[in-house]
């Protein structure tokens, strides 16, 4: 059956088809939709793990148990999971194991654009790079076979462009029936202490050599011999762009890119006059092919930044002296007012950062919707490094004495449970003068509303024990803790100011649900009394999409505001900052007093 599937959905269907019964992940754009699609398929178990390291450890367990296993994450998640992965290649698998690394060149929704192909090579994991949804679907099964045959975990790496593009896929109606092999004690394989790890490392090199031999004849490598003046070696999504721009060239399109098929590459290079390497980000293929002693070029034209879009690639090919089929008419874009993403109407973060801004603190941020508070008009988040970094960053600044202001860390509930707890332990253990705000909106919001250990629900939709964040904080030794509703901005501001006076760490848990997930929330929209509005703009500076300026001017000559009733959720943050008290709930016309 032909289906229109995104790369993410294709991975889910492909895994199901290949007999994967067990999948685990921590959500992260652009990988999140894989498990959201997988969990809807019959006869499987899928879960959100607290973080990527745990996901890989659980996945290793599932593989040890002999189940075909899928673990998915975004590129930076692999950093978190690196510790178990680097040794998992030594032990090898029982049931086939696929790690999905969804990379994000161009940083559409990420803090960096690292190229995880290098990670696969570093760890010694065979690497597959699909170029469309059909290949994403097929490669999961190829990868699982490779994994079981060669006793290795396999990385399937693709990018946002593939994850979020929809293309046609031939989907099988039935899943393969894979028997659960069961866990067997095998300490030489699974106990990685030096006496066993040393021979396993040697064995890893042998297993990789076997994969390399297989890479020479793998159906995932394709050769298209056309005009031999130019031979392009490429992999993944860039193939699609370059194949269209150089329709007559010869192509070696690699699907299995670690270990590289050296003989095949030599043969191809020998048959063409000139070898051009087209790849996004790092010169991963180019450096290895050069090291084979093959003359080639690529990065000097394409550069190492962002996505290779058709127009960028056309320019690069032009620099390389080639004539691409498409010549971008480089008309500059017309100036247009930008439309940056903003916090949603009713978002509790707006309240928290409005109160926080008043206290003049240095604020160390983390990964989540609240990173948007770094931008105008809130401008209250001053750093963002990686998941869980906020608390450690704040402790470092406080301990180094580099700030004369209150030092505050802000971290969401899901991020706190992901990797914030150890940071808090550090703050307690080393008695740092920091205030940690845990923004508890009871969901993983940024990635589209995923459950986590604090929400009381699992990915499968069953009830789960709801971890209590206060109990965690108290148990690591936090003595000063507030739990409050951030929409009561006065109380929040007072708590913040009180926390700044404490010697040692303090925690403020702001509790208010996300307005979008799991269900969209809306109360009575507020209205502006045009008689009272003086056009001061204080409400505009909380950055709510529901507040709009009008043509009507106040006595001060400033535009008065109005509130879009469709967008407004009635959160009252704008009313809190309105000095003339012009923003109110509507007075019902039916209620009349004598």
């Amino acid at each position, binding site marked *: 059956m032909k289906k229109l599937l995104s790369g993410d959905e294709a991975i889910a269907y492909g895994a199901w088809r290949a007999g994967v019964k067990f999948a685990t992940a921590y959500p992260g754009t652009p990988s999140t939709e894989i498990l959201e699609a997988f969990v809807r398929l019959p006869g499987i178990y899928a879960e959100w793990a607290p973080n990527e390291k745990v996901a890989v450890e659980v996945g290793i367990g599932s593989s040890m148990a002999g189940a075909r296993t899928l673990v998915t994450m975004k590129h930076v998640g692999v950093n978190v999971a690196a510790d178990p992965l680097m040794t998992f290649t030594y032990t090898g698998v029982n049931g086939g194991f696929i790690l999905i690394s969804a990379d994000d060149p161009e940083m559409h*929704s990420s803090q960096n654009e690292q190229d995880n192909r290098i990670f696969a090579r570093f760890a010694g994991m065979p690497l597959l790079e699909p170029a469309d949804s059909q290949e994403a679907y097929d490669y999961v099964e190829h990868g699982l076979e490779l994994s079981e045959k060669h006793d290795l975990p396999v990385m399937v790496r693709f990018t946002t462009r593939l994850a979020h593009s929809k293309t*046609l896929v031939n989907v099988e109606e039935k899943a393969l029936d894979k028997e659960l092999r069961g866990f067997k004690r095998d300490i030489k394989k699974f106990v990685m202490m030096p006496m066993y790890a040393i021979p396993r490392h040697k064995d890893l090199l042998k297993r990789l050599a076997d994969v390399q031999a297989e890479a020479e004849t793998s159906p995932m490598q394709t050769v298209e011999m056309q005009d031999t003046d130019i031979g392009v070696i490429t992999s993944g999504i860039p193939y699609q762009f370059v194949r269209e721009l150089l329709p007559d060239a010869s192509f070696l399109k690699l699907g299995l890119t670690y270990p590289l098929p050296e003989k095949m590459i030599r043969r191809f290079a020998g048959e063409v006059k000139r070898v051009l390497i087209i790849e996004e980000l790092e010169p991963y293929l180019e450096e290895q092919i050069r090291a084979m002693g093959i003359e080639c070029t690529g990065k000097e034209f394409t550069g190492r930044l962002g996505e290779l879009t058709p127009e960028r690639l056309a320019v690069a090919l032009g620099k390389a002296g080639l004539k691409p089929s498409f010549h971008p008419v480089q008309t500059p*874009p017309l100036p*247009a*007012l930008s439309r940056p993403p903003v916090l*949603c109407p009713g978002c509790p973060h707006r309240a928290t950062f409005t109160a926080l801004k008043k206290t003049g603190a240095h604020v160390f941020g983390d990964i989540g919707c609240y990173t948007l508070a770094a931008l105008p008009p809130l401008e209250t988040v001053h750093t963002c490094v990686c998941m869980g970094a906020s608390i450690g960053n704040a402790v470092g600044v406080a301990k180094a004495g580099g700030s004369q202001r209150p030092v505050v860390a802000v971290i969401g509930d899901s991020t706190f449970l992901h990797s914030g707890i150890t940071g808090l332990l550090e703050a307690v253990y080393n008695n740092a003068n920091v205030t940690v705000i845990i923004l508890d909106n009871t969901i993983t919001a940024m990635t589209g509303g995923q459950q986590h250990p604090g929400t009381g629900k699992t990915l499968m939709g069953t009830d789960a024990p709801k971890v209590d964040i206060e109990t965690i904080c108290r148990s690591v030794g936090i003595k000063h803790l507030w739990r409050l509703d951030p929409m009561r901005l006065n109380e929040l501001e007072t708590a913040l100011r009180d926390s700044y006076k404490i010697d040692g760490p303090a925690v403020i848990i702001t509790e208010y649900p996300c307005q979008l997930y799991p269900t969209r929330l809306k109360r009575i929209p507020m209205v502006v009394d045009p008689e009272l509005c003086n056009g001061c703009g204080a409400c505009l500076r909380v950055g709510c*999409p529901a507040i709009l300026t009008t043509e009507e001017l106040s006595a001060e000559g400033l535009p008065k505001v109005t509130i879009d009733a469709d967008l407004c959720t009635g959160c009252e943050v704008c009313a809190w900052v309105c000095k003339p008290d012009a923003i109110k709930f509507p007075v019902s016309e039916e209620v009349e007093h004598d």
Partner: protein
Amino acid sequence: MTKITNVLIVGVGGQGVILASEILTEIAMRFGMDAKKSEVHGMAQRGGAVSSHVRFGPKVFSPLIGVGDADVLLAFEALEAVRWAHYTNKDSKILANDLRLIPTTAFLSKGTTYPDDPFAELEKSGYHADKIPADQIAKDLGNVRLANTILLGALSKHLDVPEEIWLKTIEARVPKKTIELNREAFQRGRSFNSKAK
């Protein structure tokens, strides 16, 4: 049809750009063509600009339309037509909803402001957009959500795909009780003449 058709659909997060592009991709698929659709989402629902690339033909490689290579630019909001106009060329068609959504950050912007008339702005730079009053027509039909179907109707006139495939695909995507209304909306969009006064 041997050539590849490039349709760029743009708008603001929450307007239904992604759904519309998905419907168009499905229409192409039902017409027996290879089709690819690509966009970046994730932060879109937080009020950002959204663009979705749809390409179809006998065989499609690139999931992205190159700058200057769109055959049709369909804008769900007028300023977005201005933002993406450079993706078109002198032979392209620009269709834009006569709707102005002013971003909340407009008051903070120091240089660029929201244009008084985005359509005039386009003309000044040598682009012409057909103005489709989709929201107004939708209101006339009694349901603002029909604006998307009206815009798809307007788009259908410029693509070489039989009308019944459009209707069949749209009907499969909308709630059963709104099928008749959506048919009507599609026809209103399809027959709308932007030059008529």
